[in-house]
């Protein structure tokens, strides 16, 4: 999906700055089916919200300031840890390097100006087109003291999907990390018992990955055969 010649920034009239995330082709999710509509040749650029720069607006600058000031106390720095910051839909997303998550989480929890007491778990997203950073882990944190939220996103390559576990800082992430391992194969180093949680122990593969088929059987209804959902014609 990813095409270097297409990467860059787009500005649509009246729209926020966008970043090309990938390109999708065709319209019906099929090829060689004798589609004569012409829509099969459609090329759609996938544009995601671009990185933001200061000021971020809302309370997001306070979070960034507090983090910049306090991260050295926890063994890292803003420049070392943060890849980019995206502000979109009134939500703050900080993309950080996988190695820095433990220090980052400690700062989020312990720094009085941050006080993100509650971790709402981690979930995964699989982008097969992002070569070298296919697997994303997305953490949500909430501060009850300040009534703020922040999202931390980490991307790792499919070949070495390792992220340090933050279970020692947020014990609630025990099951969430197991779930993300179960469904995406992201390995959380330092988790005391990283086993499958929802799928059976001897299951093969990681079902939420995009290359993992949905499965299903064709269903016959009044003489017509309806194919399973993942092999039906689609519009995207």
């Amino acid at each position: 999906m990813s095409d270097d010649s297409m990467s860059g920034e787009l500005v649509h009239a009246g729209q926020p700055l966008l970043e090309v995330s990938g390109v999708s082709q065709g319209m019906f999710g099929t090829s060689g089916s004798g589609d004569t509509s012409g829509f099969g040749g459609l090329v759609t650029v996938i544009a995601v919200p671009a990185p933001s720069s200061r000021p971020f607006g809302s309370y997001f600058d306070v979070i960034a300031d507090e983090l910049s000031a306090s991260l050295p106390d926890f063994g890292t720095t803003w420049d070392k840890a943060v890849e980019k910051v995206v502000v979109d839909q009134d939500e703050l997303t900080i993309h950080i390097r996988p190695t820095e998550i433990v220090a980052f989480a400690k700062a989020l929890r312990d720094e009085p100006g941050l006080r993100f007491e509650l971790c709402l778990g981690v979930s995964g997203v699989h982008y097969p087109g992002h070569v070298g950073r296919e697997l994303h882990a997305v953490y949500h944190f909430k501060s009850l003291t300040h009534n703020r939220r922040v999202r931390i996103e980490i991307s790792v390559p499919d070949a070495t999907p390792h992220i340090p576990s933050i279970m020692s800082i947020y014990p609630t992430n025990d099951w969430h990390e197991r779930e993300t391992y179960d469904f995406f194969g992201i390995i959380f180093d330092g988790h005391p018992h990283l086993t499958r949680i929802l799928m059976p122990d001897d299951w093969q593969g990681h079902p939420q990955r995009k290359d993992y088929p949905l499965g299903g059987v064709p269903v016959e209804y009044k003489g017509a055969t309806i194919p399973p959902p993942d092999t039906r014609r689609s519009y995207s």
Partner: protein
Amino acid sequence: MTDAYAPTYETTDGRVHTVMGQDWDSVLGAADGEHERVVINMGPQHPSTHGVLRLILELEGETVTEARCGIGYLHTGIEKNLEYRTWTQGVTFVTRMDYLSPFFNEAAYCLGVEKLLGITDQIPERAQIIRVMMMELNRVSSHLVALATGGMELGALTAMIFGFRERESVLDLFELVTGLRMNSAYIRPGGVAQDLPPGAEQQIRETIMALPRRMKDTADLLVDNSIWLARTSGIGKLDLAGCMALGITGPVLRATGLPEDLRKTAPYSGYENYEFDVKTQTSADAYGRFLIRLTEMGESLNIVEQCLDRLAPGPVMVEDKKIAWPAQLSIGSDGQGNSLDHIRHIMGESMEALIHHFKLVTEGFQVPAGQVYSAVESPRGELGVHIVSDGSTRPYRVHYRDPSFTNLQAVAAMCEGGQIADVIAAVASIDPVMGGVDR
């Protein structure tokens, strides 16, 4: 006593017994002297485990030394399925997650989709009020089940009969409004599927007038009941620090005295316009959680009444015809069917309307690329949805942070060191719904 279907057999980890009831002495007798500990598998098919929860308990006598949960027996891959359906069809799937609070699943999902679409402030007032009303009625029905099954598990069968009886009257309202008692897929991106049918407001009003009196029966039965107090008071303790560390929200967190409620701290769907209290207790035990559920139901009925007072005629779907579901239903002789006016319009009057209908129903609408996290206060705590879109007509990734899933992690903290009988009370006080845990 030997049982042909539940034999005793040897494994490398020791002897395995299948406990069939009233044979505890013989099992303990058999284990005596062999090993110091007994590992008990409670569930997944056990009436006290709220569905298919498997509890793995290590016992010394009747004291639980270690407690672990085995989950996943109800995993149906809903999140994966969503990626193969349009954004609107997604509602039909998410409503089946936590099957006791379907309207919360739908609302959290729709609020997220609407945020990505940028139409949050275009949702009509009437749709918002109906959403709040359905959610609060749902909170009542869900808490009633929590009290009913919790009571049943501790032997208070009358509480179960009363709880399900009252819940039935709320389910009747769901059936009246949405056509279905559960899994309604009623809240849709952009509004709600249908306006309230004629007479619904009157019937809702009658029901919420009758409910407090009937719920008082349950309260009278349990609140000062010495057996109930003995079984729940001081059981399943989890303090504020424990809740924060384990990510616990909802009644369990509010039983520690912290008035954390998303309806107050991050209002959605116009909750800032309603007057209600966040109920708290300070005992941090199963009894406190019971009292919170009991009193929250009163607050919910109060909100429903305010909803009814505020309801004014108007649309229940966004005006944007590129998003609003084109078809309308009407009640036919079989109870449901397509609106004849709409069929006449698209089949006989307007080719454009037919094309428009066909495009929206088969292809759906596109949602701008990006990600959002939207959260609602479900009966069990913070129900969060992380939605990622790549700009197409289908969700790229939807993840549910279900409060049951997270709250179940507290089982070890609540049960270890206690009696095995108290495990039942502690788990019941968490009120996990396995459909939400396993998704």
